[in-house]
């Protein structure tokens, strides 16, 4: 019954029959989701609170595995392998699929050390290489102009919007294939939000992006594809302009016209 549009581009990820159940929950939070994610494009996930959009997002980098007892069924195919397999190397996976959180998560260390964190984890010790890659990442996240002169300052002294861009710089420094954004602007003011949205659009040249948002205008502005979720089901996945203008499913239409949610 779900309407899933054909993705014409190469696929970055493909979700196949994914069912996810939280530890101790009587019913699954994701029910047999099938969803292609197009490469080098932005896919937005929208839907009312509790619909499972963040749960789905956190399955892509196996964030759920930090807490015991949750179960996955089905597959998520990435680079030809099923990343839900118990044999998957989560440390490697998370360097390939990065994540930006709802609230900025600057580590209690300097701006430089924040961005260098993921690089150092990969064993890069060469000072010039670290410097160059930190600079490139900060430029890529459009924050170099603001912090380039004070890389040694504590990252927690930055504003919320700057911290969020710092987190994006930190994530892109390790050159992931996919970036997951979990409501990245819900804690930010309108100007910072605009900055992040512009950044998302620029970044898709280099990475494939999945963004969870409760703001439908944001989904319409930044994404190429939009998935509408409701109570653990993916109701509809379509090209963003089609989904917002001529939705196929009645539920989608009701949601985007503000009848519920």
């Amino acid at each position, binding site marked *: 019954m779900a309407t899933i549009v054909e993705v014409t581009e190469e696929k970055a990820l493909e979700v196949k029959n994914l069912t996810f159940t939280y530890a101790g929950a009587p019913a699954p939070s994701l029910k047999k989701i099938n969803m292609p994610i197009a490469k080098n494009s932005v896919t937005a996930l929208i839907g009312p609170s509790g619909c499972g959009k963040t749960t789905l997002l956190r399955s892509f980098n196996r964030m759920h595995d930090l807490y015991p007892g949750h179960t996955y069924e089905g597959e998520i195919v990435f680079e030809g392998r099923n990343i839900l397999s118990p044999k998957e190397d989560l440390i490697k996976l998370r360097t390939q699929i990065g994540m930006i959180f709802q609230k900025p998560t600057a*580590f209690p260390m300097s701006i430089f050390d924040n961005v260098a964190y993921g690089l150092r984890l990969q064993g890069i010790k060469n000072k010039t290489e670290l410097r160059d890659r930190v600079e490139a990442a900060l430029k890529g996240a459009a924050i170099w102009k603001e912090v380039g002169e004070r890389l040694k300052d504590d990252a927690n*002294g930055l504003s919320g919007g700057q911290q969020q861009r710092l*987190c994006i710089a930190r994530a892109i420094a390790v050159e992931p294939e996919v970036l997951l954004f979990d409501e990245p602007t819900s804690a930010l003011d309108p100007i910072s939000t605009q900055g992040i949205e512009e950044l998302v659009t620029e970044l898709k040249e280099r990475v494939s992006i999945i963004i969870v948002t409760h703001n439908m205008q944001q989904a319409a502005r930044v994404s190429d594809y939009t998935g509408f979720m409701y109570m653990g089901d993916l109701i509809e996945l379509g090209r963003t302009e089609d989904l917002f203008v001529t939705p196929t499913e009645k539920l989608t239409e009701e949601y985007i016209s503000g009848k519920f949610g």
Partner: protein
Amino acid sequence: MTAVEKRKLVSKIVLSLSSLSAALGLFFLFWILYVLVSNGLDALNWNVFAFEGAPPGYEESGLKQALVGQLILVGVASLIGVPLGVLAGTYLSEYGQRSKLAETIRDISDIMMSAPSIVIGAFVYAIVVAPMGHFSGWAGVTALTIMMIPIILRTTDDMLHLVPSTLREAAFALGAPKYKVILQVVYRGAKAGVLTGILLGVARIAGETAPLLFTSFNDNFMNTDLNEPMASLTVTMYNYATSPYEDWQKLGWAAAFILSMFILSINILGRIILLKKKGK
């Protein structure tokens, strides 16, 4: 009288009662401090630091052995207790979390924290002093360490718990293994709190007499061998203060003053660390 007037009257009565109680509490606090400082300063002179204990009536008698003994006892207990407490607290917060084992450890350490310290002294007497056949510095160290671990364990657990879980997730999301997340992100975030917990733990055991009375016992002369009975400021103070000789009683005051200042400065240091953290 209207309802509003009535409420205002009740408010005034409650305010004056609580102010009075606060004043009463502060009055006794400052009285204690006054007596301590005036007697302590009166008894304090260079001899106190320069000489070991001597029979009553000797001019050249001091607290050197007790100062050194106190530093050794508290120092060695901290060397053992701080790493154990911090590591156990780390286990609770980062690995055990809400598991049954972790909750049991939390409950037990809460009980241990409120256990009368003399009971811990008696326990160490039974397991260390009795088998060895004599009092020793190690027995005192054991008692102090047992007292210290639950305090540091619980504060470490609480302080690490205050680090937002999103910060951990962010580090994991960059591909960090768990031990690096703990060492590089969680510890950094909780540094001030954990350090303050350690200092409060040290301050707490530094003021203990009961667990030392029948473990490290006392020694009127200089001893740095932990296998032998060892002097401490607290037990020395107890002995001197309860003696009938005026010069010994004076030394007791000096010990009380030095000990209080030591603990006070540790507490102030803890406050400064926390304030610095907040000021950032």
